C-alpha cells in the first residue's frame, strides 16, 4: 500500500511536470526555435543579398509585445481578431499579446515597468504618460509619423487631446471618456422632476428623490472617492478648466473650491445612502439597477449595460450642471496607444506599423459594434450616427461644455486619485472639514506646480500648455 502510494506520487509529479512543460510552451524552446529560424533566414539572406536589395530585418521574425488591459470579453476578442489580421498581412511580425485583467491593471503594469519588463506598444490611459515621462522610456511620434496619421482620417481633436505638455505626442488617443450624470427616467417622471441645469437644482432634485425610510436616494457616488466624478463640480465652482491660477497656486482651497466640497458634502449627507462611503462601482450600479438610487455620475460607457437591463425608456443622461460661475465643465479622459523604446530599430518600426494598423479606419470601425467605445476616428458628429449614441447626442456632445484635464504631468499627481479617496471619506464621515481637505490638497499641489513651472519656463498653468 505504501509503496503504491509512493509510486503514485512519483507518477503524478512526473505527469504534471510534463504536462505543464507542454502547456507552458516552454519559452526557452520557443526562443530557441525562433533563433534557429532567424539563423536559417539570415543564411538565406546572405546568399540572396547580393542579388536582391532587401532590408535584412524584414526576413527575420520580429516579436513585439502589446499590452492591453481587459475590460470586457468583447474587447479581448476584438484585439485577437485584429492581431490575427495584422499578422496575416505582416508575416514577419509576431505580436505577443499580454493581457492584464481589469482591477489590477494599474498595479500590474507599474510593477512590470519597474521590474524592467517594458513592452513595445501598450494600451494606456492618459495619466500613464505623466507616470512614465521621467523614466524616458516612451517613443514620441515624429513629425513624419504625425502627418501620416493625419492622412488616415483621424479627427483633429484626437491630436489635440493627445499632445502632452512638452508638445509631443506619446499616447495617441483613440477612445475618449466623458463623465456625465446618468439617471433613472422613470423615477424622475414619478417624482415630477426635470433635468437639473444648475448645481442648486441638482441638489434639490436629489433631495426630493430621497426617502430613507423607503430606501431610495437621489444621488450616489462611487463611494466617497471617485475624484473624477467630483471634478466637474469643483471646476464649475472655481470657474476654469485648470486647477491653477497663472502663478501656479492651486485653486482648490479658495473659498470657491471649498464651497464646491461643501456642496458635495451636503449632497452626500442629504441624498446619498450612508453606507455608500466605501462603495465601489459594482455596488453602486447594483443600487442603481435596483432603483434605490436615482442618479449617479460616471463615464458614458456605463450606460449601455443599464439600457440592456432596464430598457431605453428608463435611462437618461445629462451633462454636469453649471455652478456659481455659470460655466459647465466636463472631465475628459482617454485611452490611447503608447509606444515604448526597445533599443532595436526593427522592433520600433514593427511597433509603428502595428500602431498605424490599430488606428486605421477599419480597425477603429471594428469597435463601434461594442457598447463601450467612442472612437476618435470619426468626428464627433459622425459618432452620433451610431445607433448606440444617437439618443444621447446632445448630452455627449461638447456643446457649451468646456473639456478639462487632470494635471498628470505633475509627479504629485501619480496615485492622487486613489489617495484623495481617503481624504474625501474623512470629510464625508465628519473627521475632517472641507476646508481642511482643500488645504491638504493645495499644500501638495501648489509647490508641485511652482516647481514644475520653474523647470519648464514658458508653461502656462491656466491653459496647461507651453507658450
Amino acid at each position, binding site marked *: 500500500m505504501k509503496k503504491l502510494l509512493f509510486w503514485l506520487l512519483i507518477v503524478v509529479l512526473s505527469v504534471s511536470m510534463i504536462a505543464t512543460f507542454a502547456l507552458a510552451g516552454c519559452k526557452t524552446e520557443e526562443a530557441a526555435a525562433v533563433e534557429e529560424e532567424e539563423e536559417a533566414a539570415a543564411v538565406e539572406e546572405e546568399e540572396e543579398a547580393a542579388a536582391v536589395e532587401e532590408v535584412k530585418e524584414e526576413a527575420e521574425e520580429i516579436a513585439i509585445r502589446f499590452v492591453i488591459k481587459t475590460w470586457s470579453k468583447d474587447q479581448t476578442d476584438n484585439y485577437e481578431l485584429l492581431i490575427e489580421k495584422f499578422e496575416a498581412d505582416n508575416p514577419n511580425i509576431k505580436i505577443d499579446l499580454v493581457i492584464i485583467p481589469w482591477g*489590477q491593471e494599474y498595479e500590474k503594469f507599474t510593477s512590470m515597468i519597474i521590474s524592467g519588463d517594458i513592452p513595445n506598444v501598450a494600451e494606456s490611459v492618459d495619466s500613464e504618460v505623466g507616470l512614465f515621462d521621467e523614466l524616458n522610456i516612451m517613443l514620441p511620434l515624429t513629425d513624419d509619423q504625425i502627418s501620416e496619421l493625419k492622412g488616415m482620417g483621424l479627427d483633429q481633436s484626437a491630436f489635440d487631446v493627445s499632445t502632452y505638455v512638452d508638445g509631443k505626442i506619446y499616447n495617441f488617443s483613440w477612445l475618449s471618456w466623458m463623465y456625465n450624470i446618468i439617471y433613472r427616467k422613470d423615477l424622475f417622471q414619478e417624482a415630477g422632476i426635470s433635468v437639473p441645469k444648475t448645481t442648486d437644482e441638482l441638489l434639490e432634485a436629489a433631495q426630493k428623490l430621497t426617502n430613507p425610510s423607503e430606501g431610495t436616494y437621489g444621488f450616489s457616488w462611487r463611494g466617497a472617492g471617485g475624484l473624477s466624478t467630483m471634478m466637474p463640480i469643483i471646476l464649475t465652482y472655481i470657474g476654469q478648466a485648470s486647477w491653477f491660477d497663472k502663478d501656479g497656486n492651486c485653486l482648490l482651497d479658495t473659498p470657491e473650491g471649498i464651497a464646491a466640497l461643501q456642496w458635495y458634502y451636503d449632497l452626500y449627507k442629504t441624498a446619498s445612502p450612508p453606507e455608500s462611503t466605501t462603495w465601489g462601482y459594482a455596488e453602486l450600479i447594483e443600487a442603481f439597477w*435596483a432603483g434605490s438610487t436615482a442618479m449617479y455620475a460616471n463615464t458614458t460607457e456605463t450606460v449601455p449595460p443599464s439600457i440592456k437591463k432596464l430598457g431605453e425608456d428608463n435611462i437618461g443622461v445629462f451633462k454636469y450642471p453649471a455652478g456659481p460661475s455659470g460655466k459647465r465643465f466636463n472631465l475628459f479622459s482617454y485611452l490611447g496607444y503608447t509606444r515604448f523604446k526597445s533599443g532595436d530599430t526593427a522592433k520600433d518600426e514593427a511597433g509603428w506599423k502595428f500602431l498605424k494598423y490599430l488606428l486605421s479606419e477599419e480597425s477603429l470601425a471594428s469597435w463601434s459594434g461594442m457598447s463601450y467605445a467612442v472612437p476618435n476616428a470619426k468626428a464627433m458628429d459622425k459618432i452620433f450616427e451610431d445607433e448606440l449614441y444617437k439618443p444621447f447626442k446632445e448630452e455627449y456632445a461638447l456643446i457649451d461644455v468646456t473639456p478639462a484635464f487632470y494635471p498628470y504631468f505633475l509627479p504629485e499627481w501619480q496615485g492622487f486619485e486613489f489617495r484623495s479617496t481617503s481624504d474625501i471619506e474623512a470629510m464625508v464621515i465628519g473627521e475632517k472639514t472641507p476646508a481642511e481637505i482643500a488645504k491638504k490638497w493645495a499644500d501638495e499641489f501648489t509647490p508641485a506646480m511652482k516647481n514644475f513651472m520653474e523647470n519648464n519656463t514658458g508653461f502656462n498653468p491656466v491653459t496647461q500648455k507651453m507658450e
Partner: protein
Amino acid sequence: MAKKKSLVSKILLIILFFLLILFTVWTLFPIIWIFITSFKPESELFRLPLKILPEKITLVNYFEINKYIPYFRFFFNSLIVSTSAAVLSVFSSMLSGYSLARFFFKGKNTIKFSLLITQMFPVLLLIVPLMILLRKLHLIDNLFSLIFIYTAFTIPFGTILFEGLFLGIPAEIEECAMVDGCSRFGALMRITVPIMIPGVAACFSFAFIGAWSELFAGIMFLNSQEKFTLPIGLFMLIGKYEVLWGALSAGIVMSMIPILIMFFYAQKYIVSGLTAGAVKG
C-alpha cells in the same frame, strides 16, 4: 450504572450533532446564496424586493460560462499547478520536518526562525523582485513559476506541521527498524511515513488549497490568457462595467468541486485507523 452512562452519552451525541448542524449552517450560509444565484436567470438577479428562491431554475449559467471566459482551460491549468505544487511541497516539507524533529544540530534554531521569517514579510513587496528574477530565469508567463512560488510559500508551514507530528511519534520506531538493518531514510519512508499519512494528507490539502485559490501572484506573473488559472478567470468576470454574477456564481460553485473531492479523500486518510501500538509492544 450502565443505563445511566448510555443515556448520558446519547444526550451528548445529540448535542454534538446539533452543534455540527449549527456549524454547517454557519459555514454554508454565504455559499448557499451563491449556489442559489447560480441557478437564476439574468432577469432575476438584483431585483428588489429580494427574493431568495429563484422563480425559474436554469442551468444556463453553467452551460454558457465558456462564453465569457475559457473556464475549463483555466480549470485545467489550476489543477496542474495546484497538484504539482502540493506534491513538491509535501515532499520538501516532510524531509525538512523530519530533520527538525529527529536531529540535534547546529543552527537548528536559526533554520527554524528563518522559516518563520519568510512568512513574516508581506508578500506584496516581493512581487517586483520576483518579476525581475523570473524574467532572468525565463519563467515569466510560465506555469512553472507559479508552481515553484507556491511550493516555496507553503514549505515553512508544512515543515512545522511535520515537525510537530514527527515529534509526536517516538523515535524508537525508526530505531527499531535501523537495528534491523534499515537505513534512516529507508526507515523514514517505509515505517514512519505510513503512520504520518494524516499529516501527509493535511499538508497536501493545505498546499493544494493554497495554490488553488491564490490570485495575485497569478495575475502578476502570467501574461497570456491561455495560461491563466481559475482565480484569475473568476476575477475577469468582474468587468469594468458590470459583474457577471450569473457566470461568477456558477464558476465559484464549480471551482469548489475539486477541493471537495480531494478533501473527501484526504480526510479519509486523516482518519488514521492505524494504531501506534507497535511502539508499546
